[in-house]
């Protein structure tokens, strides 16, 4: 069943506060093999002019993904993660995410269009601190393929 085109323009609820810890920044960087001590050693980070450990440039996806998960799970949307392929991603950062940030994401559906049985959903998630400071805008395009009846 194709998605409702009326989804375009809808804004979904802001995610709960996400406390970004030093451990989380370091672990995310380590999962990517990023050994630059700026992600792992706060003394190095401060010597290099940072207020705390900066996260890798794609880290905002962690918070944006929470918003995407909420969007997909919304009963009025109803799409399953396993039927979704991430087709494009873009970040526009005001600054890096730092350990110590408390972040939320608010997702807006920018457009929904159909191509060859697939719904292409363009989303925009505004990642900000709970104090209201804009940190990053994460634009994700999701391709959703609805399974045929009886298919698993």
């Amino acid at each position, binding site marked *: 069943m194709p998605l409702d085109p009326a989804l375009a323009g809808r804004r979904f609820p802001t995610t709960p506060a996400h406390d970004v810890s030093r451990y*989380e920044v370091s*672990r*995310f960087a*380590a*999962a*990517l*093999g*990023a050994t*630059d001590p*700026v*992600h792992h050693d706060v003394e190095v980070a401060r*010597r*290099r*002019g*940072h207020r705390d450990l*900066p*996260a*890798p*440039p*794609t880290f905002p*996806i*962690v918070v944006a*993904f*929470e918003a995407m998960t909420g969007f997909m799970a919304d009963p009025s949307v109803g799409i399953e*993660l*396993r*039927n*979704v*392929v*991430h*087709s*494009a*991603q*873009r*970040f*526009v*950062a005001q*600054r*890096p995410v730092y350990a110590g940030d408390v972040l939320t994401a608010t997702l807006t559906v920018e457009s929904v269009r159909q191509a060859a049985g697939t719904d292409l959903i363009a989303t925009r998630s505004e990642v900000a601190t709970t104090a209201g400071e804009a940190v990053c805008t994460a*634009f994700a395009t999701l391709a959703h*393929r609805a399974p045929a009846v009886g298919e*698993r």
Partner: protein
Amino acid sequence: MSGQGQPAPADWTAGTELPTQVFRVTRADLVAYAGASGDHNPIHWSDRVATAVGLPGVVAHGMVTMALGGRALSTWAGDPARVREYGVRFTRPVVVPDDDTGVEVIVRGTVGTVADGTARVDLVVGCDGTTVLGQARASVLVAAGLPGDD
């Protein structure tokens, strides 16, 4: 901070070729990324689910491939904070075999334009001889005196 033999961002001009970076991705990396990112989509760890949705097998999270491009950008720029805009299209899946060696992801970068203290960097990200990310480009701050300068 810049690596040896690599042009400092302040010296970048249109056409500057950045040193190619090669990364290796294994199933273990995908599991680590799933844990670190919260993206537990089973197509990134279960062959059964991946093939059921029509993929050749377990594929890397697009965000892992994109993040390796981000690692290359951070290295070239000298600091992750200099990477201000970064976008890609995920054009081909990176299939990660269930073995100990995994696959190689190769990231090449060329400086496009430099204006107002910002450089556009065009990336070519490949795996197994094919390009896996499309329209991969970033805006990187090149002016001195930013966080990350020693």
